[in-house]
C-alpha cells in the first residue's frame, strides 16, 4: 500500500495484478518511452537525461546523463550497456521490487540507454542470491523479444538490441562497477585500476554504460514526461524521486518512493511510523551500511545527496537503517565490520588486513576483553584504511566505525568493565 507521502513514479505499477507481465506493462504506458526515444536523436535523449538531474542510484550519485555523454559513440569498438543489479549493500533492498514487480520498466530503461550510446548488447548482472529474480527477468526478456521490443529491428526502427542476464556468485565486491565487469568477463571479482573508466574502457575494454537498476528504471518516465518534469520532483541538484529502504527499529519498515530532499524526521516518524515501542532514536545509517551514522541532532537534514553529505554522511544507496536507544553501538560497529571483513575481496592490503584486524579487535572488545587503548586503536585502524584502499569498500568499512567511535565513545567505555551493558538489558542489535 502506498503511503500518502510517496510520489510513485518508478514504483507506480507495483501492486497491479500481474505487474511483472508485459501485458500489464503495456496497459500502463509500457514501452511508450521507447517508442518516443526511437524517434529522438541520441543527443536529445542524453540532453533529457541531463535535464532530469538524475543521479546514479547505486550509491555514488554520479549524474547519469553526464555518464552517458562520456561514451564515445564513434568508437570502432562495440558499446555495451550493463545494469548493476548486484544489490548487496546491507539495508538496501530497492532493486529487488523494481525487478520483481516491474521488470519491463528496467528493460525499457536499458533499451533507451542502448539507443543513447548506439549499443546493441546489454547485460543485467544480478546478485546470485536473487535467484528468483533471475527467472523473472529472463521471462520478461523473452516476452519483450516475443513482442519485438528486443532483438533485430526493434519496432521496425532498424535498431537492434540484445539483452542477457548474468548471475553473480555471492560477492559483495562485485557490486563495485569495475569488479562487476571483471566478474561479467568471467574473471575473479576484483576491482580494476581506474582510469580508464567504463565509459571509455569497460566490458571487454569497450565503451560501456554502467548504471544501477533504479537509475535505468527512472529513464522511461524521464523520456515520457521530460527531464524538467522529473527534475522538479526533487531538489535543484537532486532530480526526481528515489526508493528508500527504511529498516531497523521503525514501526513500518519498507521500501518507499519519496522525493529527494524529504527531511529525515518526516521519513522516520511519518513514513516509517516512528520508533517501535515508542523508544527513543539513537542513530541512523542514512544510505546503506557503508555510510557514517547520523544522530538525533541530524533529524532535520533533507534526504538528498548534498544535504546528507553536508551533515557528514552519504545518501548512498538509500538504505535507511534506524537504531533505537537500546542498540549497542559497539555491537553495531562489530556487525558492520564482520560484514566488510567477510566481503573484502582481499585484493589490496589495507582492506584485507585492516578489516580483519578491526573485526578481531571489536569482537574481543565487545566480548569484554577490551582495554582503554583499544577504543582509540579501533578508530586509528579505520583511519589507516580510509582513503588508502584500492576501491571504496575499504572506505565503506572504515567510515561507519570511525563515526561510531567518535560519536559513541562513551558506549565503548561502558564495555570496559567486562560485559556489554546492552546485552544485559536484552538489546537487539
Amino acid at each position, binding site marked *: 500500500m502506498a503511503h500518502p507521502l510517496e510520489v510513485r513514479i518508478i514504483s507506480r505499477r507495483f501492486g497491479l495484478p500481474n505487474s511483472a507481465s508485459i501485458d500489464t506493462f503495456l496497459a500502463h504506458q509500457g514501452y511508450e518511452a521507447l517508442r518516443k526515444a526511437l524517434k529522438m536523436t541520441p543527443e536529445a535523449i542524453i540532453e533529457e537525461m541531463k535535464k532530469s538531474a538524475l543521479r546514479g542510484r547505486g550509491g555514488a550519485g554520479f549524474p547519469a546523463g553526464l555518464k552517458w555523454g562520456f561514451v564515445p559513440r564513434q568508437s570502432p569498438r562495440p558499446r555495451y550497456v550493463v545494469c548493476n543489479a548486484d544489490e548487496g549493500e546491507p539495508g538496501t533492498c530497492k532493486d529487488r521490487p523494481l525487478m520483481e514487480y516491474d521488470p519491463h520498466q528496467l528493460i525499457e530503461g536499458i533499451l533507451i540507454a542502448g539507443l543513447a550510446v548506439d549499443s546493441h548488447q546489454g547485460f543485467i548482472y544480478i546478485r546470485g542470491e536473487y535467484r528468483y529474480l533471475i527467472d523473472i527477468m529472463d521471462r520478461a526478456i523473452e516476452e519483450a523479444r516475443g513482442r519485438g521490443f528486443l532483438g533485430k529491428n526493434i519496432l521496425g526502427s532498424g535498431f537492434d538490441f540484445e539483452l542477457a542476464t548474468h548471475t553473480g556468485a555471492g560477492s559483495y565486491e562485485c557490486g563495485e562497477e569495475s569488479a562487476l565487469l571483471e566478474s561479467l568477463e568471467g574473471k575473479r571479482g576484483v576491482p580494476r585500476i581506474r582510469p580508464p573508466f567504463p565509459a571509455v574502457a569497460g566490458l571487454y575494454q569497450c565503451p560501456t554504460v554502467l548504471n544501477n537498476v533504479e537509475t535505468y528504471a527512472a529513464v522511461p518516465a524521464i523520456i515520457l514526461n521530460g527531464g524538467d518534469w522529473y527534475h522538479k520532483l526533487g531538489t535543484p541538484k537532486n532530480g526526481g524521486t528515489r526508493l528508500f529502504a527504511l529498516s531497523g527499529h521503525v514501526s513500518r519498515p519498507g521500501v518507499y518512493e519519496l522525493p529527494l530532499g524529504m527531511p529525515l524526521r518526516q521519513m522516520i516518524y511519518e513514513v516509517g511510523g516512528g520508533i517501535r515501542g515508542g523508544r527513543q532514536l539513537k542513530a541512523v545509517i542514512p544510505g546503506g551500511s557503508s555510510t557514517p551514522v547520523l544522530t538525533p541532532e541530524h533529524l532535520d537534514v533533507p534526504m538528498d545527496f548534498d544535504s546528507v553529505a553536508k551533515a557528514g554522511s552519504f545518501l548512498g544507496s538509500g538504505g535507511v537503517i534506524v537504531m533505537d536507544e537500546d542498540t549497542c553501538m559497539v555491537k553495531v560497529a562489530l556487525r558492520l565490520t564482520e560484514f566488510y571483513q567477510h566481503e*573484502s575481496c*582481499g585484493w589490496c592490503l589495507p582492506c584485507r588486513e585492516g578489516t580483519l584486524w578491526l573485526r578481531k579487535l571489536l569482537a574481543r572488545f565487545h566480548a569484554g576483553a577490551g582495554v582503554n587503548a583499544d577504543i582509540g586503536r579501533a578508530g586509528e585502524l579505520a583511519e589507516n584504511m580510509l582513503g588508502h584502499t584500492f576501491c571504496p569498500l575499504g572506505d565503506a568499512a572504515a567510515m561507519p566505525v570511525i563515526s561510531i567511535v567518535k560519536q559513541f565513545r562513551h558506549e565503548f567505555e561502558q564495555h570496559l568493565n567486562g560485559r556489554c551493558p546492552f546485552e544485559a538489558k536484552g538489546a537487539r542489535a
Partner: protein
Amino acid sequence: MTAAPGTLLIEAARRAGIEIPAFCYYPGLSLQAACRMCLVEIEKAPKLQTACTVPVSEGMVVRTNTPKVHDARRSMLEFLLTNHPLDCPVCDKGGECELQDMVFRYGASFSRFREEKRHTDEEKWSPVVYYDGPRCILCYRCVRVCNEGMDVSALAIVNRGGRTLIGPNAGGHLDCEQCGMCIDICPVGALTSGSYRHQARPWELHYVPTICTHCGDGCKTTLSVRNNRVLRGNNRDQSGINGEFLCIKGRYAFDFLHHPERLTQPLVRQEGKLVPATWAQALRAVAARFRQLLEQGSAFGIIGSNHAGNETAYLLQKFARAGLRTNNIDHHRTADYAALIAALARSGVRPADRLAGSRDLLTARAVLLIGNNPTEQHPLLAWNMRTNVRLNKGRLYVVNHRAIKLERQATATLRIEEGRAGALLDFLAGQTTAGQPPALQPWNEFRDRLRAESDLLVVFGDEIKGDGIARLVAFGNTLGGVTRYIALGDYNNSRGASDMGLLPGSLPGYAPVEDAVVRARFEAEWNVTLPPGPGLALDEMIAAAGDGRLGALYVVGANPLKRYNLNAGSSFLVVQDMFLTETARQADVVLPAAAVYEVNGTVTNTCGELQRIRQALGTNGPRADLEIIGLIAKETGISLGPVGSEEVFDEIRRLVNGYNVAMAGLAAGEAVPTAPADGRDASLGRPDLVHSSGDTLFTSGTLGQYSDMLEAVRRH
C-alpha cells in the same frame, strides 16, 4: 624533473634517485596497485595516490616525503605485519627480505597487533617450490611472472579477503616449467627453493657470478657458495643478458658438482679394469703412449667439448694441430655456425652485421622462428621472444613441423612436414612455387606476411644446416632492411667450440686449414708447420679408432660413445671428464676434470656473445681441462706456450677472427658480441653431423643425468 610522456610516477622518481617503496609494482609486469606502499601526495588530488598507476604529467607536483605519506607507509607495513610471522631469525629470507628492509626503513618500531594470527601449513608444490602462506604478502608478483612472463599460468589467487592465498592451478602441486621465477621474484620468504631452503644465512655465503653451464643461451647465474659447496643459483641482481630470467637449469642444476659419482682421481686401465691412479701415474701413462705414437708417426684423433670454455677449446685444437700434428679434431656440432658464417660471407654481407644478439630478440620488430622448440631448448631466448611480443609489440612468425608453445605468441604460424624446411626456404626466396593446392595457400600467405616485414630476425634450429643455410640467407636477402640471424646450438659453449676451431677443416675463427696464407699466420705464431689438409670428422675418427687407423683418441668433455660404437681396445683412448660416462668407461686412462663452475675463462653463447666464467669452487682431485691439456703436453714434450686461462685468452683475442674484443666490458661481466669476419670455410660439408640433442627443460645431455634436481623434477 622531466620524464617521457606515459612514464609512471614511481619509475620517474626512481630514475631521479627518489625511492618510492613498493611491493606489488614490478617493472614489466601488469599493474596491481594492491600493496598501497607507493601512496604519495599529488597536488590537487584529494586522496593519496598510488605512484605505480599514475603517469607523470606536465607541471605535476608530487610529495613523497611528507608526514601524511610516511604515516600511510607505516600503517601499510603495520597491516602487513599483522599476520606475517615475526620470526625473521628462522625465516629462509631473513637478511635479503624486502619486507624486512622496508620495515627497517619505513616501519614502526613496535607492534600494536594483539589478536590471533591466521595460520596455514606450509605446502610443497614441487621438488623446487615450497609455499608458506602466512608469510605471503599477496603482491601477486609470482602469479604475474608465471602468467605474463612465462606464459605458464601455473599459479593463481585462491580464496578471498583475509583468507586469500596463492595456489597452484593444478591443485596442490605445480604443473609447470619449474623455472623458479616465482621464488626469486617473491619479496618475502613465502616461496622458497627446494634445494636451498633452510640451508644457510645469506650473509655467510660467497656469491660468484658466472655463466650457466647448460644450454646455449648463456644466462648469468650467481652461485651462492659456502664451504666449497654451491647452495643455490639465481640472478637476483639481474645483471646478466638474462635480466631477471633463469630457468630450472640455471637455478637448480648445479648439483652435479657434488654428485657422488663425480670422478675425483685418475683411473688407469690395468688388466682390463680401470683402477685409481695418482695424477703423476696417469699423466705419465698418457704421455708415454702419446710420445711413442708420435715417434711411430701414428695418427691421433681429438674430440672436444661443448661445455668447456673457449680457452680449453682453443688450447685443445692447438695441442692437436701444433703438438699432435693432426687436423683430426671435431666436437658434437649442435648448430651449423660455420655454414651460417660462410653463407653470409659468400652472399656479400659482413657476417658481423647479420648475427643478432640475444637481447635483439627483445626489440626486433619481427622474428621468424624456424624449427627448434626454444621453450624447452632455449628458455632465455623463448622468454625474450615472448617479452618482445608482450611488451614491445614485436611480431613472431613460427615455422615448425610440430606444435610448439611459442605459437601462442605468434602472429602467424606455418606447420610443415618434417624435413621440408629446405623446400620452404626455396619457396620463401621465390625460387619455386608451392606446388598444388592446398599447400599453396598457407605458404603463399605466410610468404606475403614475411615480405611485408623488414629487418627480420631469423632464429633457426638444426632443421636448417649446410646448404639449407645458404638457402635461408638467400631468402633473407630478398627481404627489406637488414635480415639478421641466430643459429640455435645446444650447450653453453657450442658456439665457442666451433669458433675456436674444434672442426677438422677449420682453424680458429673459421679459417680454412687448406689456405696456406691462413696456416702461415698460425705457423708463425705457434712456430710449427701445420698439417695442410682437413682432418677426420667425429664419426670418421671413431670409425678409424675402431679399426686401428688411429693410434689414440683423446676425448675432452664429450661423450661420443653414447651415440657411436667403438671397438674396444683397438686404439688408446684417453677421456677427460667429470663422470664415468659411456665414453670414459671404455677409456684406457680417465682424467677427472673440473666443471665450468670450477674454472675461470670465457664462453660464447649461441648468439656469439662472449662472457666470463668465474671459478666458484676449488677442486680436490679434479683439475681444470686447460691445466690437464697443458700437463699432458708438457709430459709429452710438446711446448704449447703459457697455458693459464688469461694467457690463452690473450692469444685467442690476438689470433681468432672476431674475438679481438674490448676487455673492459668483458671484465665487468658484460656480454660482448664477437664478430667473426672470415667465413670462407665452406668445405666442411657433413651437415649430417650437425644435430641437436633435443634437450628438454629437464634434461641436459650427459651432464643432466647427474643432476638429482632435474631427475626429481622429471619424476614429479
